[in-house]
């Protein structure tokens, strides 16, 4: 049933056209010793070989725990960080090695919404300036046109045009995040990378922002890469989901497929750990509690990165042979030699690995 998936043909016959293709992206941060002569002693492998494609008009959700490399990956895609190796292809053009000047036209097409609405807006600038800055940088209109555009944007995101001259501190967290959304929309981008856009917000405000993002996507045909640690939120907003662990993409599938039939034990453990706001369902569900912590990315485990915590660990295989992404019908891929046969499962059932993939 499972066969190795090749990076080049991972998304055949996709509905929308590929907007962004990331191929074997790696980002290592050097760890150095010494004050004057800095010796390289190790590297933090924050992102270690991630490949995927984002199609036009879809939302790709990226989930993983803190330190799994989600944000570093986003920053590499936006060229806010220079990747160590790999390729980023945006609308058919390899942008990995473009200079600042060459990159500029592409910056208009890809924008970012950040996690912390308190830190991501310049406290000394007025809202009008914050939102129109990108318009000015790209010389997109006269001052009067830009002002009109900003007021229009404020309305689109559910604020009022009179807020034009206010400062960020006059707004609540949810409203600030709306300003962040307006700023990202200003130059009519194709792709918006949302890095934990709702994790700092309260639930009632979170729902407002999630609904807004969905409405905007429909209206303007936006493509999102939506990064979050909250599996509920990712399920709600995504079309396809990528699960990351320790700098690797361990599973990739359509939303419903991933949540109903996960193949990687880590995905299973994540899903089962999410508390359900329904005491009857929640307390009777089969829960898989992982042991230990995420290993140190300076010195990650050999072969399968998850083998130190995996209930299905098979000695002599999982710690020796690095799993490639096996394919499980359609677009579903997972990097596990002993994929889950069914779902849900208890830890006990999980301990007995079935047939080996590949």
């Amino acid at each position, binding site marked *: 049933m499972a066969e190795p998936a090749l990076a080049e043909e991972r998304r055949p016959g996709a509905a929308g056209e590929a907007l962004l293709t990331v191929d074997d992206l790696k980002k290592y941060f050097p760890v150095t010793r010494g004050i004057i002569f800095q010796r390289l002693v190790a590297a933090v492998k924050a992102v270690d070989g991630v490949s995927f494609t984002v199609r036009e008009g879809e939302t790709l959700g990226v989930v993983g725990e803190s330190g799994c490399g989600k944000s570093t990956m986003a920053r590499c895609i936006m060229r806010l960080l220079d990747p160590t190796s790999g390729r980023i292809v945006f609308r058919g053009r390899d942008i990995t090695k473009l200079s600042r000047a060459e990159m500029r036209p592409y910056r208009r097409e890809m924008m970012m919404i950040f996690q912390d609405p308190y830190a991501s807006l310049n406290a000394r600038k007025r809202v009008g300036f914050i939102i129109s800055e990108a318009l000015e940088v790209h010389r997109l209109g006269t001052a009067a046109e830009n002002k009109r555009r900003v007021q229009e944007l404020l309305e689109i995101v559910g604020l009022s045009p009179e807020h034009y001259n206010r400062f960020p501190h006059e707004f609540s967290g949810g409203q600030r995040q709306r300003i962040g959304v307006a700023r990202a929309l200003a130059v009519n981008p194709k792709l918006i990378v949302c890095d934990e856009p709702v994790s700092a917000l309260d639930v009632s405000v979170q729902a407002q922002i999630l609904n807004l993002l969905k409405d905007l996507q429909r209206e303007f045909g936006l493509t999102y890469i939506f990064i979050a640690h909250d599996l509920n939120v990712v399920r709600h907003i995504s079309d396809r989901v990528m699960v990351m662990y320790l700098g690797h993409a361990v599973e990739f599938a359509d939303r419903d497929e991933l949540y109903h039939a996960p193949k990687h034990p880590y995905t299973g453990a994540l899903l089962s750990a999410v508390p359900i706001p329904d005491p009857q369902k929640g307390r009777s569900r089969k829960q898989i509690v992982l042991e230990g912590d*995420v290993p140190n990315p300076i010195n990650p485990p050999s072969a399968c990165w998850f083998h130190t915590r995996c209930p299905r660990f098979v000695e002599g295989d999982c710690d020796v042979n690095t799993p490639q992404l096996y394919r499980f019908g359609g677009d579903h891929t997972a990097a596990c030699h002993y994929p889950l046969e069914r779902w849900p499962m208890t830890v006990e059932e999980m301990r007995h690995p079935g047939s080996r993939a590949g």
Partner: protein
Amino acid sequence: MALLEVRDLKTYFRTDDGIVKAVDGVSFEIEKGKTLGIVGESGSGKSVTCLSIMGLNPRRNTITSGEALFKDQNLLTMSPRKLRSVRGNDIAMIFQDPMTSLNPVHSIGKQLEEAILLHRDVTKKAARARALELLNAVGIPRAERRIDDYPHQFSGGMRQRVMIAMALVNNPDLLIADEPTTALDVTTQAQILSLMNTLQEEFGSAIIMITHDLGVVAEVADDVVVMYAAEVVEKAPVDRLFARPHMPYTWGLLGSLPRLDLNVERLVQIQGQPPSLLNPPKGCRFHPRCPYVMSICKDVDPPLKPVPDEPMHLDACHLDQETKDREATKLLETMRGAAA
């Protein structure tokens, strides 16, 4: 007889801008060995409620009134000296952020021993043995080697385990946990919640669990208090609250959650923002955001009163019983229809 009974607790802070009514007439009680969940959004007064019970608010500029009867003694009027002997002994607290609530310049062993030596008349050696025993109980691997490590050498989940060990040092009757898993990842959260559950069975402590996550509440609580803008708006046994919520704010909260077990295209949103506590709205504090608002809601603050035939379920809402039942049923049917 309840272990802790809070009656009409009010905590006001004097600020330059006026008086902030952070907690405004909160009452609840908790039985021995039970878990009470307090849910609410940020600024709803959950944490201040517990800090007031523990007497941990700054003395200057704080006005506290009401009663917090712990084993028949009012914690709010107790002398600081007496309160100190209760705190950390009979009542312990776990804070949200395990990164900042441990002292970075002392080893965790030393910090644990301090809590033991302060309340028990034992030798240092015995205190260390007890500290070690607790570290094992909360699942720190190789505890005998790690007891002399410093907080920075532990991960977030491990630090939270140390915090729990510290809270359990003197077998408290009541453990107040203020968002103990909010700073943690889901898999670590699952570890900590299951640890707290096991320890509760073992030590028989009552737990007050403060959280903004209705999922966590559904998982661990026996009874739930829902807070909004410094007041309790609904209180019920956990099954009852999720099966028959009675207050528009609770409906809004339940509807606004994206959930793993439901397919919902569009989330219910509660319009607007939580109000400022400097100048809360007149009448029901939720009325500016409430889709069911009536004219009475704008003038009269609804009292927290029991639902007919359901003495354990209290709500603060002017809507008539029929509407509440109808809307609650509607909400639950939509949810059932959306089940994945």
